[in-house]
């Protein structure tokens, strides 16, 4: 006797598994302008590097003579693969089978993706498109009550909770993503969604039943909602762009929390000094400027343009966060964007900062902070949003930070919020356009000199006179004289100065890299 028949059945099962939800279902999926999970994986990974796990998991269907006639695979595809030669775990729901709502084997494989990433300490990528659980459970016998896991089993959320501290987790929403997959999507360091994706706790029918409101899934959780809510970091123009962003993000981070980021040198000279930096900040305090242009001129340029990779642009937009390279080193960037509320720290910007600083510490990314902070956002909406608590939590996160930190004081640094831009033992450079103090001149003068202004023969002229006198006192030169900053510099020197510091700071990290843990914050 040989095993030929069984070996043949393995081949048959594999072939059936690759048919996913069947030709008709795959065609319907393509007509919606979306790729299947297997097509997505093949775009993302290096050619022929996908090493599938659990291809044989699923439900067989036999005829009366016990011959296999069909095989419904688990609707979560999972495996190892490589991206630019680096090992990763990749997985995602198969929407062509039950709309990605987990079947029993699919659910097990989805949980196992996180366990694999933890076990082998490699980045985890989840490509989501699918629903959550069903009221009938995952059993095929719908008249049976769903069986829960035994009381002694480990929660399926346990590995989900652990991954963020141990391996880079990247996720994409590439269609409707609801319930558990939505929860998995946001349990990531970087997430991206396509224009036709929607991320939902519960879909339109559930919302209609519970709240009586008629809303489409796009209205509930489309990109216009979740890029601003902060649930998802970036928008991709299409699925190919989503994969491109995932690959780019991973290029800046190490494989796990026990490793440090790779240095990838570019041809960009370290001593490149851009004249534009000397005039980019207007002398008129009321005029805004484009902070991203500063970042792009300072960071390494690559063949594809700037090495700056921005994350979460629409969420808390008064703060810019992203990754880049300087002298080949992988760095994290924090900067204020004065085009939004003068760069003030809103509740959203504070939460964005805290999360980003924790991410940088988890993967040992040196932080470069470009400071133009007028203070916490003020006004009734800001008070109602609890900005003071979120802002103070962000400051605590910054001061618990253990990565090399450099701050370039570009323009404003006022009030308590300014502290969120200066990490422990940081290297501090100052531009001539820098100004600092307890609060910006305009607000400070209105409060401290209210009576003097009111009693003047020309109150408006008096106010301007006082503002000009006090603005001069906020000059950076006295701070440099008092060695309150390491150096006041010509803005054109920013790139060479930061590069030289970074070489020293990165080399000084002699202790082994390890997972980051922080205490409670406000």
């Amino acid at each position: 006797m040989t095993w030929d028949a069984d070996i043949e059945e393995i081949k048959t099962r594999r072939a059936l598994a690759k048919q996913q939800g069947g030709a008709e279902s795959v065609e319907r999926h393509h007509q919606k302008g979306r790729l299947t999970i297997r097509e997505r994986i093949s775009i993302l990974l290096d050619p022929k590097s996908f090493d599938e796990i659990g291809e044989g998991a699923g439900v067989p269907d036999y005829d009366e003579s016990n011959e296999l006639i069909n095989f419904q695979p688990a609707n979560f595809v999972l495996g190892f693969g490589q991206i630019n030669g680096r090992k990763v775990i990749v997985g995602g729901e198969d929407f062509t089978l039950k709309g990605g709502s987990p079947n029993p084997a699919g659910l097990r494989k989805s949980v196992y993706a996180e366990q694999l990433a933890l076990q082998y300490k490699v980045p985890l990528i989840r490509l989501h498109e699918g629903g959550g659980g069903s009221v009938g459970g995952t059993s095929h016998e719908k008249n049976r009550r769903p069986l829960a896991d035994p009381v002694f089993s480990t929660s399926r959320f346990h590995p989900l909770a652990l991954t963020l501290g141990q391996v880079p987790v990247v996720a994409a929403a590439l269609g409707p993503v609801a319930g558990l997959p939505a929860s998995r999507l946001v349990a990531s360091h970087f997430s991206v969604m396509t224009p036709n994706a929607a991320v939902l706790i519960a879909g339109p029918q559930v919302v209609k039943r519970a709240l009586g409101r008629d809303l489409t899934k796009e209205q509930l959780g489309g990109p216009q909602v979740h890029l601003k809510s902060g649930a998802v970091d970036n928008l991709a123009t299409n699925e190919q762009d989503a994969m491109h962003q995932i690959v780019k993000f991973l290029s800046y981070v190490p494989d796990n929390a026990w490793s440090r980021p790779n240095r990838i040198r570019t041809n960009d000279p370290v001593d490149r000094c851009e004249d534009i930096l000397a005039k980019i900040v207007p002398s008129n305090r009321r005029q805004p400027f484009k902070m991203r242009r500063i970042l792009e001129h300072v960071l390494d340029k690559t063949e594809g343009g700037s090495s700056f990779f921005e994350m979460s642009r629409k969420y808390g937009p008064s703060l810019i966060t992203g990754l880049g390279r300087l002298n080949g080193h992988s760095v994290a960037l924090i900067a204020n964007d004065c085009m939004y509320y003068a760069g003030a720290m809103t509740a959203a910007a504070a939460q964005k900062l805290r999360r980003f600083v924790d991410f940088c510490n988890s993967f040992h990314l040196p932080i470069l902070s470009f400071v133009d902070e007028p203070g916490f956002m003020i006004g009734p909406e800001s008070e109602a949003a609890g900005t003071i608590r979120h802002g103070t939590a962000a400051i605590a996160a910054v001061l618990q930070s253990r990565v090399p930190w450099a701050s370039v004081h570009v323009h404003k640094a006022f009030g308590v919020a300014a502290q969120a831009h200066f990490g422990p033992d940081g290297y501090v450079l100052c531009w001539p356009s820098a100004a600092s103090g307890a609060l910006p001149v305009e607000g400070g003068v209105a409060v401290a000199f209210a009576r003097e202004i009111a009693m003047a023969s020309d109150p408006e002229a008096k106010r301007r006179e006082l503002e000009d006198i006090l603005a001069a006192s906020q000059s950076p030169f006295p701070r440099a004289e008092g060695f309150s900053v390491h150096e006041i510099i010509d803005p054109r020197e920013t790139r060479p100065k930061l590069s030289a510091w970074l070489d020293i700071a990165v080399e000084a990290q002699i202790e082994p890299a390890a997972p980051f843990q922080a205490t409670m914050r406000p």
Partner: protein
Amino acid sequence: MIIKSEIAGQIWKTVVRVGQELAIDDTIVIIESMKMEIPVASPIAGIVTELHVKEGELVMEDQEIATLEVLRASE
């Protein structure tokens, strides 16, 4: 295309008038917010068909500022 304000503030200056042709990045209005003058720029080449705000008016986030008609490349 409807242009909305991304910030709350006061319309400090309306830079364009109805019927005016705009290039990408041309300023439509300037909003004073947190003591700075923040321009609202056109994301497209187009013609202003409606201005929804006046100078001195307070605006909230997502409030409509102007309506633009997209200018085709051949025009």
